[in-house]
């Protein structure tokens, strides 16, 4: 939801409510793109790679997380960069992220580390689903928690 829309909404239609404005936005927790970068559906029967999972997001949020440059530069080599990029792009938050790979001087490039920090730890999917690229199986994300449980006959 855009804040412009929020700005227009009231709950006045509820019986007994006189003003119903402004509505309080409850913050909902979310899955971070770091977590997405690690998830696969390989454990599912018949799936060979199961990576990367497609994201269909219906709700995105940005939360504020303390910036720790040492941590980010340590975690960069673990990240599948094109997957991170396309995940960020698919939910409309790829701004300033390099497309192919991190810059060579990434360990000392604070501007880049801040961009990576935001993409990895601050952009969050609240509601949506993850789709297996091979089987098409959908995994719902509700309240920011991806549900990766499989039925017994799927394992």
């Amino acid at each position: 939801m855009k804040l412009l829309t929020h700005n227009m909404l009231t709950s006045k239609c509820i019986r007994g409510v006189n003003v119903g404005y402004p509505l309080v936005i409850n913050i909902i927790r979310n899955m971070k793109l770091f977590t997405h970068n690690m998830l696969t559906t390989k454990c599912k029967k018949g799936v060979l790679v199961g990576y990367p999972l497609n994201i269909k997001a219906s709700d995105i949020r940005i939360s504020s997380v303390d910036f720790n440059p040492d941590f980010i530069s340590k975690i960069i080599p673990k990240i599948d960069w094109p997957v991170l990029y396309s995940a960020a792009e698919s939910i409309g938050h790829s701004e300033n992220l390099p497309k192919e790979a991190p810059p060579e001087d990434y360990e000392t490039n604070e501007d880049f580390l801040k961009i990576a920090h935001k993409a990895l730890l601050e952009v969050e999917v609240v509601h949506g689903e993850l789709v297996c690229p091979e089987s098409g199986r959908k995994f719902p994300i509700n309240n920011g928690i991806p549900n990766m449980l499989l039925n017994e006959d799927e394992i």
Partner: protein
Amino acid sequence: MFPCLKLRKIEERLQCIQEFDRPKVKLEQYVTPAHLGSHMLYTIQSQYGDIDGKLVADLGCGCGALAIGAAALNASLVVGFEIDQDALDIFQANIEEHELYNIDSIQCDVLNIPERFHKQFDTVLMNPPFGTKQNEGVDMKFLQVALKLSNNCVYSLHKTSTRNHVLKHADSLGAKGEVLAELKYDIPATYKFHKKSSVDIEVDFYRFVVSR
């Protein structure tokens, strides 16, 4: 010694964590008591510096006592893995209550965590099911997963009566285990089959160092 929040402050945090509404015997859902959890977290950070700035996993996080404590101690990110929807709902409510933004959670079977997570975590924390009743051996399965996920070390609780077995098992998995403390786990009568109002179980607090 590493910089760390005061023990009392950690315990206060853990004391206001909401517990299971209807704990499930099948999943051996017991809350990690605030006193015990805070001592674990304080030791892990103040003695070994294994939380602040680290990527931390909490296996079978339940209502999230250890995860929330680790997030409060400035882990860069804590990822909680939990199979049970009801527990995750309480966990989410606790996260919101504590206004922590460095926690993520995944609903999945701990024994079925994607391989891409292997060796990614600096520190793995867990208060695993003890493997009693119908769950025999599940504690060692949790340990095996934990050792795979970590590139540095694993902190866990296991029954004191199984110490030799635990140490041998860890050794066979290429990890070096050390008992940091013997603790009394005061389990209030959570389930109908508990006859006494509370039971003290003797548990060991372990640190396992993973071979690189």
